């Protein structure tokens, strides 16, 4: 008898895994839902560089809005990886997204795909006028607005103030001047036994390459997409010359060949190790290169507009992040309150002072508190105002991949056939643009 019962138990045990699995499958279904009169909104964010500042900001919001609870979901740090995660959720019409970050190049894509909610009703013209123009243009698609800009980025030239002073140079106005100065400083420094390169930037095959190359092309009077015809301008002389200049005078010359593998962090490393005279990067590099704990050149850094070619004018690629609201959100009102809060004067000010991020509201560029912490902002306002967006298209990711491939092929091989590569990239870009017409 006893024996029988035991064997029954044993037999039951055999099915234990099966029972467990069924239990696990059934589990989410009967998860208890907590009753609460608070509205929960879900905020999809990248991994921030300054988590403590974000903690403070969210703390203020919850204190002032006791009826709203914010759940933050943190995604990857890299823009491309974050894009893949976020679009995956939006593709599936996930209800778990209310508010999300958008990189400056995404609004047309998110608008056309129907993922981002048009905000015209909540974000009127009168309010939009208070933001930098470029940031509003970047968030507008077919006359409707899809995001509220939170902070802005643009390409800048960082230089070693001490070295330029020592050799009697002013910050370069043209790319040729920069090459000349870099060459001379490197030569003399090397005679003194110091190992240094002239220039550092981002030339790996990825999004940053498009920003870097665009700045050369535009500052030579070229265009990636021609304004009048809306077609590729890559095969025109100014664009071809600019690309050739990067291949022949920058890569492997004043810049180490390694820049072909560099994204932002690697290029900045070279600079803050004191191994580069010039660096092309985004404003965040200012704070880090002047931090004596991270940088060997703290206090020796200067910042300037990017150079241009003779006869052209300086252009910076426009970067920065916006907040959007999902079309599939159930809590649009609460979501909007959150977005309005994050992009308000005082939070942008706090963010600028504590995280060094450049605000999008024009008036903040006259704010003594911000300028005290970030003296370079006063000077950079010009650059921000003239910053130029990358091609605006819902198919921008496809265009970017074509550009990345073209630029990488053109500059990483000293014998590349630039005309041929440009022609084939142009054909593909025009084919993509035609799809959206």
């Amino acid at each position, binding site marked *: 008898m006893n024996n029988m019962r035991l064997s029954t138990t044993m037999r039951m045990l055999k099915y234990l895994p099966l029972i467990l699995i069924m239990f696990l499958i059934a589990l989410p279904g009967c998860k208890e839902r907590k009753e609460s009169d608070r509205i929960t909104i879900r905020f999809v964010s990248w991994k921030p560089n300054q988590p403590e500042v974000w903690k403070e900001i969210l703390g203020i919001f919850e204190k002032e809005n006791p009826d709203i609870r914010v759940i933050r979901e943190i995604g990857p740090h890299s823009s491309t990886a974050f894009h893949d995660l976020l679009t995956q959720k939006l593709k599936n019409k996930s209800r778990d997204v209310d508010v999300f970050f958008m990189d400056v190049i995404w609004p*047309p894509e998110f608008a*056309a795909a129907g993922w981002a909610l048009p905000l015209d009703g909540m974000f009127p013209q009168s309010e939009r006028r208070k933001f930098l123009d470029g940031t509003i243009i970047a968030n507008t698609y077919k006359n409707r607005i899809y995001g509220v800009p939170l902070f802005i980025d643009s390409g800048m030239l960082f230089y070693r103030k001490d070295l330029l002073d020592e050799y009697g140079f002013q910050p370069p106005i043209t790319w040729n001047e920069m090459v000349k100065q870099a060459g001379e400083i490197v030569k003399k420094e090397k005679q003194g036994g110091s190992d240094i390169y002239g220039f550092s930037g981002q030339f790996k095959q990825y999004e940053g390459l498009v920003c870097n190359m665009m700045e050369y092309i535009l500052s030579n009077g070229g265009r990636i997409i021609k304004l009048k015809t809306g077609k590729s301008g890559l095969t025109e002389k100014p664009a071809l010359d600019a690309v050739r200049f990067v291949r022949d005078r920058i890569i492997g010359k004043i810049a*180490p*060949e390694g820049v072909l593998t560099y994204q932002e962090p690697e290029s900045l490393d070279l600079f803050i190790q004191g191994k580069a005279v010039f660096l092309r990067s985004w404003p965040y590099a200012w704070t880090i290169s002047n931090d004596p704990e991270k940088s060997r050149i703290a206090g020796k850094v200067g910042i300037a507009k990017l150079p241009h070619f003779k006869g052209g004018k300086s252009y910076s690629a426009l970067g920065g992040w916006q907040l959007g609201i999902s079309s599939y959100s159930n809590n649009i009102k609460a979501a909007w309150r959150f977005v309005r809060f994050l992009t308000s004067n005082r939070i942008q000010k706090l963010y600028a002072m504590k995280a060094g991020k450049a605000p999008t509201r024009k008036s903040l560029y006259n704010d003594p508190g911000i300028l005290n912490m970030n003296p370079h902002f006063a000077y950079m306002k010009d650059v921000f105002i003239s910053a130029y967006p990358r091609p605006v298209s819902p198919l921008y990711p496809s265009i970017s991949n074509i550009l990345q491939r073209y630029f990488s092929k053109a500059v990483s091989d000293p014998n590349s056939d630039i005309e041929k590569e440009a022609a084939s990239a142009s054909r593909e870009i025009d084919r993509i643009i035609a799809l959206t017409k």
Partner: protein
Amino acid sequence: MRISINTREEVFAAVLLIPCLLFVAVFAFYPVLYSVWLSMHRIILSLPALGRKFIGLGNYVELFKDEIALHSLANTFLFVIISTLFEVLFGLVIALVIHRHFRGRGLVRAAVLVPWAIPTVVSSQMWRFIFNDKYGLVNFLFYGSDVTHYRAWLADPFFAFSAIVIADVWKTSSFAALLILAGLQAIPNELYEAARIDGANAWHQFRRITLPLLRPVLLIALIFRTMDAFRVFDLVFVMTQGGPADSTNVLQFYGYKKMFAEGLMGYGSTISVLVFVITFVVALLYIRVIGSGLMQGKV
């Protein structure tokens, strides 16, 4: 009506198989068939106005006219051939070594498995550091502390491609070694004893006994490695992102870009289906051409 015990057991067995079949259907057949279905449509996520248009084999026609796809296909083939060859070769050598009796063999056997145990993303990151242009180990080995000669290996199309092959060979040779070691252990010792009595030297023993008896295992290692190598993705994703100049762009990475970055669901699926078909055909070929004996049970 009485059901015989045998039938009852068969029914019971069939019932027990249902969950497993369901599992395979849901997680293997459905995704594959759905990919094939998607690949016959034009779906551009950011242009919903275009809808889901059925275009039959249109995407496939485009694929074979797409120079970048063909280039990445060629890259993939090159990668597969070179890396698989070295992996099986090194695997064989490693297996022969750790099959012998020596002091500390257990330790060495465990150590051999370490590369295989490390997740590819982690080892890719490690290799990226090893090939770094400023502090990489490779530079240190070649040039010591003479930093002025350090090279940017991953900036050079040829070396970047080689680096990916090397990283893959490093990681998966141990897997091949493991399979081959199991094969070695199945060879009866008497054969070697008899051969030795007949006066065969080590080379003869290897040629006439070890190699023929290892054939089925070598085949399995080849199949596994070839199919796995075709699906190479993480190495490229972490180490080079397909660059420089598209020299390390492989089919899976290209498909990922199309699908996840560009939102071309139809065309992206077409690339996935191509990878699937190629691996399937390769497996069939191996079994038909090399392994015909194996399948009939005579090795």
